[in-house]
């Protein structure tokens, strides 16, 4: 039952075929058994999980039906959950206990989800491999010598390894979609403003968005429907009542126009990877979709634009970690040196790098040349998408240019930044975008076939249609269920 989908689990718990308490016990046992190998979790909240499970069972006994009754949930550790450590995988917050719960998480708990623990991430969600975590190493369940992707690496690894049924992720430039592709799960970033950011520790406020990480598109729709909607605690949530996506899932793509981006030509990719995406596009067509070519001429500026706006915002967002009120404090001779020592000891290299870039970009004399220009480029990128969506309902492209890479393979920061080439433009435009499993490739020098993800993106607030399209593709291809994870189910002899 632990390996079932959220929809199946909730049905069984509501029907009292299995108790949430029993399920929570099994899920915690699974974590105990596997997480030593995977390292998905920074903290396991067993006691809390059992308390929630009892509450769910009591509610079900009272005749209530909860949409996520008993569903084991992993929470990315940049989201606050009252009474639990919330670290952002940073030494600067190590030991900090959140005094409140983020809105998105609260909505899932209210729906009956069982919080198993907090998952690893790149420090403050800055990274694409989870290697920037200061507090733990997460392995890709498909090949433990490889990264799970990032920044939501712990959450995708937990779902992929069967250590959680669903997980929350946050996506600023691809942090849900790229790791979902690397670990063969569904990762969905809704439209900016759809899901409350209250209680999500900010990296780049104008880009951050919470979304579900699940085994199936239907589960993603279920979780998204519960998380979405205006929150009075987040002024950037939109005042639109989202139409439920779960009932709109569809079986074919007849009458759907899928845009293939001219500038994202597959010829740049390795032949094996290229073949997977060619087949994915062909499968879309077989399902009845019309493939149309669309142009995103400014998408190439995505990474440059993103690496001005996101660092600028983070330089301000991360100022509060100063050792005065919470988290790490390294005493200095005076207040100024206490700030400096605390931040020097508390932040890792990538976080410092981005704070410095952002501080520079906002400095007097440089602001217009960098920040203002980047905002203009962002507008142009969004305009490109608006024009593209005039001729298509969704855009299909690779979620990443390659499958998961080995640890320490991207020592140069820019090579790591390029991992988000296909995900950043959608983030800058605020679009709903997801990654759905689309096949496997054996990387050069690799031991196992590694999964790849197809990225599907829609116009603003078109989550419902987008999830419907992704479901039709998933249902026809079933890449997520095509094969078992080798190292866990059938351990291969020690490498």
């Amino acid at each position, binding site marked *: 039952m632990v390996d079932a989908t959220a929809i199946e689990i909730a049905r069984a718990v509501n029907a009292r075929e299995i108790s949430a308490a029993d399920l929570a016990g099994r899920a915690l046992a699974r974590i105990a058994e596997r997480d030593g190998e995977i390292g998905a979790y920074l903290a396991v909240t067993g006691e809390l999980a059992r308390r929630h499970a009892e509450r769910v069972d009591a509610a079900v006994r009272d005749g209530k039906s909860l949409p996520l009754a008993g569903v084991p949930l992993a929470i990315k550790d940049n989201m606050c959950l009252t009474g639990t450590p*919330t670290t952002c995988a940073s030494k600067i917050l190590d030991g900090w206990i959140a*005094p409140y719960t983020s809105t998105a998480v609260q909505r899932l708990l209210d729906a009956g989800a069982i919080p198993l623990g907090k998952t690893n991430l790149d420090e403050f969600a800055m990274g694409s491999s989870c290697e920037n975590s200061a507090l733990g190493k997460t392995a890709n369940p498909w090949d433990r010598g490889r990264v799970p992707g990032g920044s939501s690496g712990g959450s995708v690894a937990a779902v992929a390894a069967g250590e959680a049924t669903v997980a929350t992720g946050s996506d600023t430039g691809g942090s849900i979609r790229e790791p979902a592709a690397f670990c063969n799960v569904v990762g969905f970033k809704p439209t900016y403003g759809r899901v409350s950011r209250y209680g999500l520790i900010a990296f780049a406020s104008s880009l951050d968005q919470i979304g579900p990480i699940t085994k199936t598109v239907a589960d993603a729709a279920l979780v998204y429907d519960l998380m979405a909607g205006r929150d009075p605690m987040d002024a950037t949530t939109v005042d639109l009542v989202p139409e439920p996506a779960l009932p709109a899932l569809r079986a074919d793509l007849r009458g759907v126009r899928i845009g293939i981006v001219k500038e994202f030509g597959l010829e740049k990719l390795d032949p094996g990877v290229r073949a997977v995406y060619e087949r994915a596009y062909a499968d879309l067509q077989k399902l009845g979709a019309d493939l149309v070519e669309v142009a995103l001429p400014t998408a190439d500026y995505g990474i440059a634009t993103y690496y001005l706006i996101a660092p600028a915002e983070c330089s301000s967002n991360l100022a509060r*970690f100063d050792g005065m009120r919470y988290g790490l404090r390294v005493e200095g001779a005076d207040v100024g040196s206490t700030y400096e020592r605390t931040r020097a000891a508390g932040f890792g290299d990538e976080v410092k790098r981005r704070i410095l870039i952002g501080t520079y970009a906002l400095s007097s004399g440089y602001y217009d040349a960098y920040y203002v220009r980047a905002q203009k480029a962002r507008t142009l990128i969004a305009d490109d998408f608006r024009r593209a969506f005039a001729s298509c309902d969704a855009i299909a492209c690779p979620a990443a240019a390659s499958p998961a890479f080995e640890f320490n393979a991207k020592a140069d920061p820019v090579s790591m930044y390029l991992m988000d080439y296909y995900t950043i433009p959608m983030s800058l435009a605020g679009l709903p975008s997801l990654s759905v499993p689309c096949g496997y490739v054996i990387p050069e020098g690799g031991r196992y076939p590694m999964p790849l993800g197809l990225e599907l993106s829609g116009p603003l607030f078109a989550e419902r249609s987008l999830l419907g399209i992704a479901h039709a593709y998933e249902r026809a291809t079933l890449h997520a269920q095509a094969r078992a994870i080798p190292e866990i189910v059938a351990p291969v002899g020690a490498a």
Partner: protein
Amino acid sequence: MSATVESAAKPALLVNGVPYEVVMGIECHVELKTETKMFCGCRNVFGAEPNTNVCPVCLGMPGALPVPNEKAIELVVKAGLAFGAEIPAFSKFDRKNYFYPDMPKDYQISQFDMPLTQGGVVPFWLGDGTHGSCRLTRIHLEEDTGKSTHASHDGRIAGSTYSLVDFNRAGVPLMECVSEPDIRSGAQAVAFLESLKRTFVALGISDVKMEEGSLRCDVNLSLRPIGRAEYGTKTEIKNMNSFNSVGRAIESEVARQVAVLEGGGRIVQETRGWDEANGGTHSMRNKEEAHDYRYFPDPDLTPIEFASADVTRMRAELGTLPAEILTRLISSDKLRPEQAHQMVDSPGLFAYFSDVVERCGKPQAVVNFVLGDLSRLANESSTPVPESNVTPEALAELVGLVEAKTINSKTAKELLTRLWAKGGSPNAIVAAEGLGQVSDTGAIDAIVAEVLAANEKTAADYRAGKTKVLGFLVGQVMKQSRGTANPTLAEERLRALLDVCG
């Protein structure tokens, strides 16, 4: 453009014999009177137990987000409208980035290049009856910081072994009013501040209590030879805790700058703190230490847009402004500026005054009672005039009785004391007790005859040319009549009868 002051009778400021002028602009921070803080639901109250009105948002906890207080935005727009400011259709919040322990997020949500209001003019009257004004540059909205108490001997962070921070104030809505450099004297500076205060209090925008820190102001001050267009190097003076200390700090800083210039020195651009105890300013930091605040639009908040209908509604809600009342009192009712200010600044007093004048006319007579005897009684009893037993109706009757010469001023004074204590109708009391002033010639003549009979020697003295004794005789008539005789008539009849009988 300089302040439009309609009187130039000002002693010249001389620096090495050359006439100079003082040029000042003022920045005021005013805490808004809202139920809740600027970006969260915590209560906005002064004087609570430290760190009790706080939440994840105003403590800057990781992951917390600001949600703007619409009421605060409206109060700032009204503040601007009260001075004729322009309300741009579009405004936004920006982050001002700098580190300080009492600033929870290490940035302050403020407004940089698109404030809620732009322009406007603050009118004021000076004690000598002259009218002036100072242009506003802008009013913008921001959040207050927490309050630090540093352990060092001088209360500054440098040298403190520890500091205590109270975050109750963190996130309180704060509006910053920035003036143009139109102010030319300490008196104008104080009159400008009083005009702001009067307006903000009247509109319920703020309590404006300097002693509680709900108004804090910085003065930018420079000197220049009269006639020169460029400004001199300015200093910014901070830490004044009353309007009185604003005036004193300006005097002190002008004297310091004059001394520097006369000694052949140059003014250094710097921030100077006012020291109430020493009565002087000291250097706090200079221009080289100025921050780069790295302002940028706050991505957690959406832009603010106003429909012109909103602005029209808010303008209509302003009602009669204190400046309009002052103009009327001074120009039409001929009150002296300090009388008019007193009338407007004391809660409810102007409404009371208007009510009385509406009933009886005679604003001059009414103002003398209201600011004279009634205000004295109010001070003695700690009961405000409008809440006293003397109803506007009663005072109107009293003024009517005096104006009709039914009672004299002495009777009126006594009557007022009785009304203050017990209330009642002056007309009824005067009728019942026969307190009416006797203005009947026959009645007066009878008393005069009695007085002359009793004072034959004095009457003879008068007739012999010692006319100074007339005053004594008038006094005797008043005494005989228990104060009710009309003194003018008494004197007139005394003269007549003395002459006739002589």
